[in-house]
């Protein structure tokens, strides 16, 4: 199939003219586009809008935690009188906000918004392909994502409120509407939305894998691929392996909810009645969920790490240190990520022996992660660092990746997990290591490839302000959470006032919320910069960051098929920065090796 796709483009080549694309109408160009660059932009814009929703939600529930059961006009306006009578947020709506915040950020922003955007944009451009293997499937993938996003947003408006059983939707809470109002129509829509999302994600991932394997240009061997592509490629594979398992879990849950089966339910007495459920196991659901849920962490994080590798090398004007070790780490992380899911379930009631196994595999994953962190640091060493906003976010990512990753040593240890499981310590850990890190990766990618996407530059001064305030606020929000977690404060508590023991943590919660509000407010600078620059930014030159990879050999103005002439041939790896013997401090991949030029055994 891919060969056919290739040939069609080859056919375009012969005509060697652009007038073939003039038939494009507004609808085929901007809406039902099959051009990967346009689809990437669609993913980015949709992801950004979902991100705004997700972050506003987090502000709402943070305000409730900091000033419990106080009346706020903003609650009245955004939540309405039903969810916030008199401006006081209701307890089940608090949980709904937490749930939808998690769902949106993990799936819609950091999976689709990050991976969808940059895989689509960069895979064809960086491997030297005219488009994805199947442009049509790519378009369907985006529109399914869009549909699932719309359904998720619609679920916010159902009468009893959206899904509110946590983003992990553990049954029976998610299965029985009597247990929590959100488990009625809201939960149904959640499951429908996620099922469609998974279909979308699978189509995207299959496309990425096929494209990387089949459509690399001449000379682009696997060991000449930029690390971004390696990351997207492996991410897509993990997605293909693990997302179907979530789909099966979702389908079984739909059956339990709607057709009276008992896959996950047994012996339940609720609202004064015994239900008919018999013989199912909620622990089974937890296994199925985390079989996706844990790889999902890396589905979110690996693309960010790939983006960072590329940006750090470019801006350090230095080869990425240990290219092969970086690839090996990506592969090791990907493999290990599929066999560590049980560390979310140490105290779930599964056999403690399994806990031992999962502790072992989980702590192993620290090794490739450490290698990656060290390699990033060494790449900076004796570089000539160009502090563009993308570079700042990449360095920021390494910083939060280390800070957040280190506490994984505690959480991944079954013994230590006993007492901090489901406390704010966990919230601090995963927000730093995957939430903030992946967001930084996304910001870095946007600042770096904005000229490629929109032909214009983003304002760097606003970028600097955006980065520095975000960097301080991100630590400001999540660092103190470690302390309140060590105090035993459980997550997902609507209010901590029921326990005098937690009274002393209240000031910290207020501080966290203040940091969150300031941090979120400064994202407005980013949004303004982003949308303003799309239309009014400075015109970009072809290769503004003086980078080696192939996407910068395409013209600034987008054309379907990427390169006006032939697809360029590749002669070297992408990291020949500051190579001795060359005039410039970068040598694009399309430059042939000089006579006698030494090729490193990267």
């Amino acid at each position, binding site marked *: 199939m891919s060969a056919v796709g290739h040939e069609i483009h080859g056919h375009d080549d012969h005509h060697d003219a652009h007038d073939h694309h003039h038939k494009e109408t507004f609808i085929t160009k901007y809406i039902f586009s099959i051009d990967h660059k346009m689809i990437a932009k669609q993913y980015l814009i949709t992801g950004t809008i979902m991100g705004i929703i997700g972050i506003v939600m987090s502000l709402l529930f943070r305000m409730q935690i900091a000033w419990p059961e*106080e009346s706020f006009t903003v609650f009245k306006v955004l939540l309405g009188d039903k969810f916030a009578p008199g401006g006081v947020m*209701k307890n*089940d709506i608090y949980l709904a906000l937490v749930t939808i915040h998690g769902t949106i950020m993990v799936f819609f922003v950091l999976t689709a918004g990050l991976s969808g955007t940059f895989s689509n944009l960069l895979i064809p451009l960086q491997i030297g392909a005219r488009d994805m293997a199947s442009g049509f499937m790519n378009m369907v993938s985006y529109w399914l994502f869009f549909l699932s996003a719309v359904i998720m947003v619609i679920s916010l408006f159902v009468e009893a409120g959206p899904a509110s059983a946590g983003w992990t939707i553990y049954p029976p*809470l998610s299965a029985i509407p009597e*247990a929590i109002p959100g488990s009625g129509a809201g939960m149904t829509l959640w499951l429908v939305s996620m099922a469609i999302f998974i279909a979308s994600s699978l189509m995207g991932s299959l496309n990425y894998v096929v494209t990387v394997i089949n459509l690399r240009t001449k000379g682009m061997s696997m060991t000449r691929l930029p690390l971004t592509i390696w990351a997207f490629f492996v991410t897509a594979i993990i997605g293909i392996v693990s997302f179907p398992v979530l789909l099966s879990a979702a389908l079984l849950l739909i059956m339990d909810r709607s057709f009276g089966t008992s896959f996950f339910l*047994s*012996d339940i*007495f*609720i609202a004064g009645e015994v239900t*008919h*459920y018999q013989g*199912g*196991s*909620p*622990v089974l659901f937890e296994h199925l969920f985390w079989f996706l849920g844990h790889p999902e962490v890396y589905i979110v994080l690996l693309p960010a790490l790939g983006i960072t590798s590329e940006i750090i090398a470019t801006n350090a004007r*230095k080869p990425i*240190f*240990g290219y092969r*070790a970086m690839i090996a780490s990506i592969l090791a992380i990907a493999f290990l990520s599929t066999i560590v899911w049980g560390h979310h379930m140490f*105290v*779930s*009631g*599964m056999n403690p022996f399994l806990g031992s196994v999962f*502790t072992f595999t989980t702590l*192993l994953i620290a090794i490739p992660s450490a290698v990656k962190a*060290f390699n*990033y*640091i060494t790449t*900076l*060493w*004796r*570089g*000539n*660092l*160009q*502090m*563009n906003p993308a570079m700042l976010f990449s360095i920021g990512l390494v910083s939060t990746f*280390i800070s957040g990753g280190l*506490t994984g*040593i*505690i959480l991944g*240890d*079954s013994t230590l997990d006993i*007492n901090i499981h*489901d*406390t704010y310590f966990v919230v601090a850990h995963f927000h730093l290591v995957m939430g903030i890190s992946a967001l930084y990766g996304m910001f870095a990618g946007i600042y770096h490839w904005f000229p490629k996407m929109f032909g214009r*530059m983003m304002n760097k001064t606003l970028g600097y302000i955006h980065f520095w305030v975000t960097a*301080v606020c991100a630590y400001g929000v999540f*660092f103190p959470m470690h302390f309140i977690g*060590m105090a035993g404060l459980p997550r997902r508590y609507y209010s901590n006032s*029921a326990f*005098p*023991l937690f009274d*002393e*943590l209240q000031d*910290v919660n207020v501080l966290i919320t203040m940091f969150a509000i300031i941090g979120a407010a400064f994202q407005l*600078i980013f949004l303004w910069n982003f949308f303003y620059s799309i239309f009014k930014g400075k015109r970009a030159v072809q290769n*503004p960051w003086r980078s080696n990879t192939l996407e910068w050999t395409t013209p600034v103005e987008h054309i379907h098929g990427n390169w006006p002439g032939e697809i360029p041939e590749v002669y070297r790896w992408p990291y020949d920065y*500051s190579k001795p013997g060359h005039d410039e401090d970068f040598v694009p991949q399309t430059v042939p090796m000089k006579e006698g030029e030494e090729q490193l055994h*990267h």
Partner: protein
Amino acid sequence: MTGLLIFAVIILLGVAIWQLSKIFQLTKIGAAVYNENSEVATDKDNNVNGWLMFAFVAFIYIFTIVGLVKWGHFALGTPASEHGPQYDNLLAISFWIIFTVQFLTQFLLHYFSFKYRGKQGNVAYYYADNDKLEFVWTIIPVIVLAVLILYGLYAWTNIMFVADEDKEDALYVEVYAKQFSWEVRYAGKDGVLGKANVRYIEGVNTMGVDMADPHAADDIPASELHLPKGKRVIFKFRSQDVLHSAYMPHFRAQMNVVPGMVTEFSFIPTLTTAEMREDQKIMNKVAHINDIRSKKSEELVADGKPALEPYTFDYLLLCNKICGPSHYNMQMKIVVDEKADFDKWIADQKTLGTAVKESQEKPAEGGEGAPATDTAAKDTAAAVIPQDTTKPVAQAAQPAAH
């Protein structure tokens, strides 16, 4: 309202900064050199941001130190179970490693960002590989992690697997969870918990104990968890509706409570409630909390609301798995007594057999003393049990392992 005001202030602040950046940019245009206006970092940008990177590592350090000083005392303090010190020790080792690595790597990362900030004319060092170096920093984590894994697994096995000889003399307690409260049931004189299933829930038998089981009648239900000091307690957890998690932070103990199965955890309490109240760390904590509460009380009284009660320390059982709207207030007090006091307390409790008999003797005027939901429960449960087609799966004391 405060929130909204703060929000407004922040937005205005943002606008101000944006305006400042405009001015900043305008002043730059006058001194335009090559590349100055292309939105690509210049030497000046590299310099400013390089220094800021250096400042940022200082920020991380200071924030960490301030955090440790100001919030370090939030930690739970002296553990009250036998495995607790081992847990805390492993935690301490892990934290030392984490702080060391964090200190070094964050320093290198930000210092290099500062030291090697770009300058026109500088050339980076072409350095792509070094097998020795990479081997070193692969092997160091391997060794450190091997130690942590081994110690962790040793502790885990100690905590989770109870030897058979320890089981003989243990106290068996069922902890029963429902939205949004806890109940407990002691095994009684025979030391065995009667079998149970939610289908047996009826009237005072709120935990669904099978009264036909000979082990059931002597079981002792209670609404407060009392534990004897120094005796191994084996908990059996059951839930009647959704997932809960029985979290007893002071004992370094937690286990999820899963409907349809029995989960298990065990520990030996080592400090009575009275002893814990005398613990220096706990006394400081309580004093601090009472400070906060009395200040808050003053405000409340000024508003004409009742003052908060002063806090006295008690062990707690919290729900730590999202279980519904009132998840945030699903708790039970735990009391650890000296063995003699515990024996006295439990002798005063009514056995389940007696309670059921008493409730049956009374004419069914409408479930006296039974919780509200049980009135409705009665009919359903009674309707289900005699049918015998859905034979209740016995959920007696059996290991949680499948």
